[in-house]
């Protein structure tokens, strides 16, 4: 029944092989991957680990188990389970296969025991997830996926370079604390930073996530960034720079989120905001802070997934998620509305919902370390996240003015997936000890005391009061169909524009050159010297050229 020492990714990869042949109701069999895989992990984790794969001289450690990798392992099984239920109705087997491969790659990365294995799964994450964006098959989604792949693979290349350098310096590939010192460490840090959506590296996320299929965005929101968080917690815990990066990540996206019209893009920005809390926690590096960071990652996968699921349901039924053209959907999508409200309450950290029990750990850890300014920034971000993800998303989609849209309620399997997400959000909020029991470090934190509950309620209710007041005064910015420029402007606008200029200049130069060559060739032709012809002659000539080039290289290298 159970197989010890079976790396969890293998289960997902095997099921991915069968996914294309399972049609109709048989597709439900795919659920066995996370269910059996998760149970197998739970039953055998205690006596598993140390599975290696000999590859020439290298020994890859494919299955390393400790409490940290186990927490993320369970989380990814839950996320894959929810995502598979959510996508049961999807007939496009590309999404089923790439979803399973993607979830498997994430599991491979968190159970990897050495940096090279991490790198392999890091690249697999990039490639498999891109298919979830390509699967939307609209021109802008395809272009966004292309940009996404370039940036993701770039992150992989940086990581590989860093890993190789680190191996040369230390002689070991083991995945352990690195610390931010030296070029190798910085390269790995930046590689992780790209997938973790550090400021200025974040636009792949806000660019591609809103353009994926409903299922695709759900998968995407769960895995890539959380693998990066896991690796940061392993390799750079207690790095002070991360506190400031995290604080910036919590604050800047909320401004974008307020003025963004595409509600899935609003969620993408708020995903960065939530990652900021985790990065901050990792930066503080105390047991409480690290526990808070990984607990928040756990909760975020579920509540952010829930919010993406509700918006995916709206996208499926209405065809778009523009705040400016939605409203009043609660009339025909009441269950989706309720699920969205649960997700909104969780991300806003309302007491009795999951966000409350994990975000507060990071905040408490910051106060313990006397990081007052950063704490105030995170408090501002907490108010802000309630404002855009907690109020704006449900309000503009399901309430606000009646848009006249009367879409059907979401498909049954989507409702089921959302219900599971919503139940988990409330269950963890009410019984935080269930999650706390899984946390890797020593933990005696208790979120429900009088002070904390009261202050959080004050913060949230008065943020809501601000929304009500601004709306009543007509000061709240209306939802407008627009694009807000972000860092991506550099590579979507400036780079193509300047690139165009360079290409044009080169093209002009080439035609001028060709013309000159033609003139010279004509002059030669007039002299009517017979040119060498025949395959052998041409081959010899080419070889001669190669020889000359090689000689030049050798001479050059000798001189230098």
């Amino acid at each position, binding site marked *: 029944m159970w197989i010890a020492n079976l790396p969890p990714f293998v289960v997902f990869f095997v099921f991915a092989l069968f996914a294309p042949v399972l049609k109709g109701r048989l597709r439900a069999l795919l659920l066995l991957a996370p269910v059996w895989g998760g149970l197998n992990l739970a039953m055998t984790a205690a006596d598993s680990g140390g599975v290696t794969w000999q590859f020439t001289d290298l020994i890859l450690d494919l299955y390393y188990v400790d409490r940290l990798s186990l927490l993320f392992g369970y989380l990814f099984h839950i996320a894959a389970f929810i995502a598979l239920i959510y996508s049961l109705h999807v007939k496009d087997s590309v999404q089923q296969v790439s979803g399973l491969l993607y979830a498997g790659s994430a599991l491979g990365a968190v159970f990897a025991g050495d940096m090279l294995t991490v790198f392999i799964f890091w690249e697999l994450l990039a490639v498999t997830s891109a298919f979830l964006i390509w699967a939307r098959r609209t021109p802008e989604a395809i272009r966004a996926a292309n940009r996404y792949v370039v940036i993701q693979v770039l992150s992989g290349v940086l990581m590989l370079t860093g890993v190789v350098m680190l191996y040369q310096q230390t002689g070991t590939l083991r995945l352990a604390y690195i610390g931010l010192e030296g070029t190798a460490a910085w390269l790995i840090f930046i590689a992780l930073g790209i997938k973790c959506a550090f400021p200025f590296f974040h636009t792949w996320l806000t660019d591609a996530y809103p353009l994926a299929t409903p299922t695709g965005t759900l998968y995407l929101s769960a895995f890539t960034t959380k693998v990066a968080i896991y690796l940061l917690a392993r390799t750079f815990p207690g790095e002070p720079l991360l506190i400031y990066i995290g604080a910036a990540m919590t604050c800047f996206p909320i401004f974008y989120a307020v003025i963004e019209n595409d509600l899935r893009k609003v969620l993408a920005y708020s995903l960065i905001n939530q990652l900021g809390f985790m990065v901050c926690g990792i930066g503080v590096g105390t047991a409480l802070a690290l526990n808070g960071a990984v607990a928040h990652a756990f909760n975020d996968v579920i509540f952010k997934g829930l919010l993406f699921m509700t918006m995916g349901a709206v996208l499926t039924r209405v065809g778009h998620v523009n705040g400016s053209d939605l409203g009043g959907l609660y009339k025909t999508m009441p269950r989706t509305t309720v699920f969205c409200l649960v997700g909104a309450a969780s991300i806003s950290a309302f007491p009795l919902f999951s966000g409350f029990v994990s975000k507060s750990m990071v905040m408490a850890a910051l106060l313990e370390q006397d990081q007052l300014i950063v704490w105030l920034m995170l408090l501002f971000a907490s108010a802000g996240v309630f404002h855009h993800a907690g109020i704006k998303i449900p309000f503009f989609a399901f309430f606000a003015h009646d848009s006249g849209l009367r879409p059907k309620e979401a498909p049954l399997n989507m409702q089921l997936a959302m219900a599971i997400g919503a139940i988990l959000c409330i269950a963890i909020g009410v019984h935080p000890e269930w999650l706390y029991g899984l946390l890797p470090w020593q933990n005696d934190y208790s979120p429900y005391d009088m002070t904390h509950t009261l202050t959080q309620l004050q913060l949230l209710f008065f943020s809501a009061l601000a929304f009500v007041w601004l709306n009543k005064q007509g000061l709240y*910015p209306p939802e407008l169909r*627009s694009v807000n420029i972000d860092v991506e402007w550099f590579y979507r606008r400036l780079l193509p524009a300047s690139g165009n200029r360079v290409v044009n200049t080169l093209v002009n130069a080439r035609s001028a050159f060709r013309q000159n060559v033609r003139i010279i060739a004509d002059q030669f032709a007039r002299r009517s010297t017979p040119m060498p012809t025949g395959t052998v002659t041409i081959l010899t000539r080419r070889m001669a050229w190669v020889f000359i080039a090689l000689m030049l290289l050798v001479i050059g290298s000798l001189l230098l």
Partner: protein
Amino acid sequence: MSHQHKDDGLFDDPRVVTWILRVFYGICAALVLVDFIVHRHIYTAVEKIPAFYALYGFVACVLLVFAAKGLRTLLMRKEDYYDAQAGQNQKTQEDDR
């Protein structure tokens, strides 16, 4: 409800909305009152300000919205801002051929 269109939902009735808002204002007021009655733990100096969290939440959100509105003048472009560029590229490529 009989005078209303059958398509109307619960929240189309202004009386319902008024009541929800009244309850909401009531809770807000209660939360501030409780702040003066209950002794809450103080970890940093700023928390000594009465109803600090309520004030901070309100001011933060108002500032956030005004700042974001201001940013719109700087950041907002037409919906096809990037696509227009892409379309132009495509056109030049076709011209090249």
